[in-house]
């Protein structure tokens, strides 16, 4: 997969033509909408009564803002690309917009927001685009100011595309230093395409014990990759295959775990030979 953040800084990469392409691509629209709904779900305890005041970090052309409008939330979006924001203006959204660089901090009154979401943004902060930019200090300033901007007990959910496990650790390290608790939720961990990373951060304690939300898989939910200690004890090997039928069933099981559609059902005919003379 190509990584736009390796090509140019965001305010230059998303110029007028790139911003237009991005916004009119229906596949991008659909994926962004799905991820926004999921992020709102992870934001948690949505009683649907009082609307929230949310911060959309890296709102771009407002693909995620559109969903926030639909759900009845009030929101403020910030982005570094003027071209993206001018498209958001044309799309006539309810929320307010602000041109700002999150690497230089979130410039709002402390405790203003009931939550924050961010779709496909965080990986951009890990790149040094100029000699004066240091990803570490930019992330630190961002998380510190975000922690201040959120009200106590609220959450921030970031969907992002990390390059490696090291990058996840790098980002989460700064979030922890800023005072956030929480962890990573990985949806569809066995699939290469549907796999999505959500960083769920809690600002302060909300009184009750916070439980990390569970990740989604095709068959059900699996426990999340948090900071829980993992058992070093390895279970005995169970994948010793005896027959062709076992082998076929094993392959089908793996495909289902990856969320593939149209995997044949199991039956008593699975793995049987056809009759001769077919």
């Amino acid at each position, binding site marked *: 997969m190509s990584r736009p953040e390796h090509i140019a800084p965001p305010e230059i990469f998303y110029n007028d033509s790139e911003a237009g392409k991005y916004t009119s691509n229906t596949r991008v629209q659909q994926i962004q909408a799905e991820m926004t709904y999921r992020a709102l779900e992870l934001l948690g305890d949505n009683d649907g*009564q*009082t*609307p929230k*005041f949310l911060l959309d970090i890296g709102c771009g052309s407002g693909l995620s803002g559109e969903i926030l409008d639909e759900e009845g939330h*009030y929101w403020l979006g*910030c982005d*570094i690309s003027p071209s993206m*924001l*001018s498209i958001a*203006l044309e799309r006539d959204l*309810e929320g*307010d*917009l*602000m*041109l*700002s*660089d999150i690497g*230089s901090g979130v*410039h709002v*009154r402390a*405790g*203003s927001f009931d939550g924050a979401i961010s779709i496909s943004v965080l990986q951009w902060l890990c790149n040094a685009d*100029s000699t*004066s*930019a240091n990803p570490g200090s930019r992330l630190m300033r961002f998380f510190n100011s975000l922690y201040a901007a959120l*009200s106590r007990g609220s959450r921030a959910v970031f969907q992002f595309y990390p390059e490696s496990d090291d990058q996840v650790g790098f980002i989460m390290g700064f979030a922890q230093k800023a005072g956030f608790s929480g962890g990573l939720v990985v949806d569809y961990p066995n699939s290469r395409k549907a796999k999505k990373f959500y960083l769920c951060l809690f600002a302060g304690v909300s009184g009750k014990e916070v439980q990390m939300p569970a990740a989604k898989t095709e068959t059900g939910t699996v426990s999340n990759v948090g900071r829980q200690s993992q058992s070093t004890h390895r279970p005995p090997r169970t994948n010793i295959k005896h027959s062709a039928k076992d082998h076929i069933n094993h392959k089908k099981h793996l495909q289902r775990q990856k969320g593939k559609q149209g995997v044949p059902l199991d039956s008593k005919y699975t793995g049987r030979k056809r009759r001769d003379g077919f």
Partner: protein
Amino acid sequence: MCRIEIREQEFNADFIRAFFPKLDYGVLKSTLESLGDDSLKLDSVEDIDGQPEDFLRLLHKVLLEMDVTQGEMTCGNCQHKYQINEGIPNMLLGADEI
């Protein structure tokens, strides 16, 4: 030079009540006065629940419907001027200004 537009939005009393404690009412009042609007009469508000709905509607208008589309904000600390263009404040700073 400053331009203000009104964009109508649905009124939600619960949201305004929940939002009010986060607000610095004095700053809101002085900001409005600097824009030449003196619709907020009260000097301070102790208890939002005791206020009539007219006041909530006024807050709704001021907070959600009023939009400064053209103008500038001056930092009270360093006097840096942030321009507002088409309703979008430009908060970008140069590398030497951070």
